[in-house]
């Protein structure tokens, strides 16, 4: 009888976890991969990542994935890609609806051993990746030894933002509620909020020259509560460590890059729902050093503009103006007084009444409120 009582008016509990969008930023910097080729080649890494993507898609029926390549001269989507005049398919939820990315869906050989949604994602990624590599020529490689991680990050954030909007639950619109009442077919009530995360598979070091864009992306991600996971296969950057630390993501720098798949499966596959009950690996000590705005060098001690908080590594600014905000900033004064660590004077045990210079401090313990002259 008890459960007639109002306490049992439970809502249907949503047991299924919310759909999860995994955005992978793959660092495809040819210089770094060439350096790493003895232990883990790029093709092997890509094969491992494809399996990881399949595992992610299999983990939830509504899970989605996006892959962005951060190359040496440009960043581009590997999946999903725009395919004009492609009929969208209704039954398939494992993918973006508008940018379905199965331009090759019908043409490629159907394998009876492969789950179709997996095959579609894989072939698209491989095709776009091959296209990206073919477009790269020597002048691109000679221009820079590093990768455009800042651009890729912001691309990932914009994609996530767009997908989140598409998945947002319908708000109770009052303007045409009567239309919605009669037209139940066109109202999508089953949309659940999307949880997103970014995984950066990074191989390049020395990203300090992109300090500002990367830092801005990190703060944007922090604000949107998007964890940035870092898998650091080679090189070391202060920046990415900070990214995972600030956004609450996973940071891993594997000792043995050849075991990439196991690292991915164990540490990076759990989504937000699973992470609630798991202990996730993170960077032990985070290097919080910043890069200066003038030469993009990582500095231990620098100079900070008092107006816009820009960081500079040396005091010789042109015209004594801040490079970022243009306000007057004379750092010479700071130079004449080099910041030095002054050893703290050993506090002597003060005897009550001996130090009369500071009236407040001279109050003997237990006395009443000091009376100021």
């Amino acid at each position: 009888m008890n459960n007639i009582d109002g306490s049992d008016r439970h809502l249907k509990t949503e047991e299924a976890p919310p759909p999860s969008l995994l955005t992978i930023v793959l660092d495809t910097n040819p210089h770094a991969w060439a350096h790493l080729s003895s232990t883990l080649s790029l093709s092997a890494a890509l094969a491992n990542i494809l399996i990881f993507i399949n595992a992610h898609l299999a983990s939830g029926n509504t899970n989605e994935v996006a892959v962005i390549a951060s190359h040496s001269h440009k960043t581009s989507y590997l999946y999903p890609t725009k395919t004009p005049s492609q009929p969208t398919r209704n039954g398939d939820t494992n993918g973006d609806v508008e940018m379905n990315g199965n331009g090759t869906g019908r043409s490629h050989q159907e394998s009876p051993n492969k789950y179709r949604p997996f095959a579609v994602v894989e072939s698209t990624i491989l095709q776009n990746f091959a296209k990206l590599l073919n477009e790269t020529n020597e002048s691109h490689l000679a221009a820079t030894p590093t990768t455009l991680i800042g651009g890729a990050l912001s691309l990932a954030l914009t994609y996530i933002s767009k997908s989140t909007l598409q998945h947002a639950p319908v708000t109770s619109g009052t303007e045409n509620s009567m239309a919605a009442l009669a037209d139940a077919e066109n109202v999508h009530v089953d949309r659940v909020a999307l949880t997103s995360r970014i995984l950066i598979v990074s191989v390049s070091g020395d990203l300090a020259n992109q300090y500002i864009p990367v830092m801005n992306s990190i703060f944007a991600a922090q604000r949107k509560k998007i964890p940035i996971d870092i898998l650091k296969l080679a090189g070391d950057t202060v920046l990415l460590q900070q990214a995972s630390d600030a956004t609450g993501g996973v940071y891993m720098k594997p000792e043995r890059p050849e075991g990439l798949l196991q690292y991915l499966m164990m540490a990076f596959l759990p989504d937000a729902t699973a992470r609630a009950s798991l202990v996730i690996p993170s960077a032990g000590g985070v290097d919080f050093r910043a890069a200066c705005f003038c030469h993009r060098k990582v500095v231990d001690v620098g100079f900070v503009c008092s107006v816009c908080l820009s960081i500079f590594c040396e005091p010789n600014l042109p015209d004594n103006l801040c490079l970022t905000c243009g306000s007057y900033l004379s750092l010479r004064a700071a130079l004449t007084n080099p910041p030095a660590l002054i050893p703290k004077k050993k506090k002597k045990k003060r005897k009550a009444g001996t130090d009369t210079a500071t009236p407040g401090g001279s109050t003997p313990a237990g006395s009443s409120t000091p009376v100021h002259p």
Partner: protein
Amino acid sequence: MSAPSSSQALEYLQGLPLQTHRRLYEAPATVLAVFRCMLPHLAKTLVMAMLYMPASFPESQLNAWFKPGATREKSHALFVLAQLHILDTTREDDGKRTHSLSPGFKRSLRHALEGSGRDGSFGVSATAEESRGERRVSVEYLDEYAKAQWETILFYMVGGAAGVDVKSEIGAGTKKLLHTGDLVRTFHGQPRITKEGFTFVLQETNAQVWNLLIVYLRMVNDLGMNETDVLSFLFMLGSLELGQAYSTSTLTATQLQMLDDLSAMGIVFRSTKDARVFYPTRLATTLTSESGGLNTSGSSNSSSTSSASQGFIIIETNYRLYAYTNSLIQIAIISLFCKLQHRFPNLISGKLTKESVHKAVSQGITSSQIISYLTTYAHPQMQKNKTFIPPTVMDQIRLWEYEGERVETENGYLMREFSTQAEYKDVKKYAEECGVLKWSSDEKRMFFISHVEQVSAYLKSKKGPR
């Protein structure tokens, strides 16, 4: 939302013996479907973490991986994995327990993810030569076909009780299936729906399909069919592509026999009895995904997305009910527990009264069934409320039912005669973590659980080390 519709399938799978599981896990498609649809979320994470692990996973490390507050979730995940025989737990020489995936499951899941299998378990597309002479079948046509077939079955069930005189003809095999599953009984030559039948009708389409298929699975041994073959084929159907023709050449004799039965239900489509290709319909391809198959309330709008549940029922706190539907089946179902008053081209209106609910209860429908039906098909406007149905209505339906019956029964096991209070406490706590504890009495030192396997294994393992 995937949980409710496939939970019966999970229950059925959990009841299967080890040998059947072993044979089932030979096919990558089956393993993938089980992984995607049956496992709790944390169990998926566990499986994936262990999939490419070179050695087995020591229990101490597993415990370290979980946060201290998550023991309940962990136990539940391990419980399901152990029941499905996915996880093997062995004791090392030094007394430590280690977990590993069962080899067959591991191999097949790897094949599924890598696409490296050799057995074509994801369906062999029909070759050009095989599909010659077959007309191309559009997705819309398949949807229509599936809908028509499935609604005929539902009509056959509700027709008699609702007083709607519809002489719908369904195949002898399907009829037998419905009778075997005790969804329908024959009174005076007329099919009469049973309590189980009502539960069935009130579910979402996807859950209905699974329900019927499970009845089918229970029957297959009598028909001399191979249970494993049947299950593998069902899971394969779930991973096929809608609108694509598939070859029948690689199917076993059992599976060919199944094709006939399934096409009668509208789950697959074949143009003729001995066609060499078959088309899975939406009922089949959504078997292992959460979006419900067909939209029964919808009008001719077949191109609309097959979103999980199209709500169309509005209930007011004065017990008035409005349903935006023109589907005869839905009207028939609603009329089972509601006094209908008006009918318009796209709308019916009625009132929930004490008499109408009593009538439903006397026919074997329970209040929770009515409420779950109303909740499932609640109109989007209603779904914005905290509880979809007004609380007063919900309570009143329950009260009306409780006027008649007051006892619910559940099968399970009573655990008693614990020697010490500590032992009792410990085992009870474990049972609670597994989510099988139903009732307990600390004074009498006994408790009641719904499933005994995991708890008895726990008791054994406790005895072991001492």
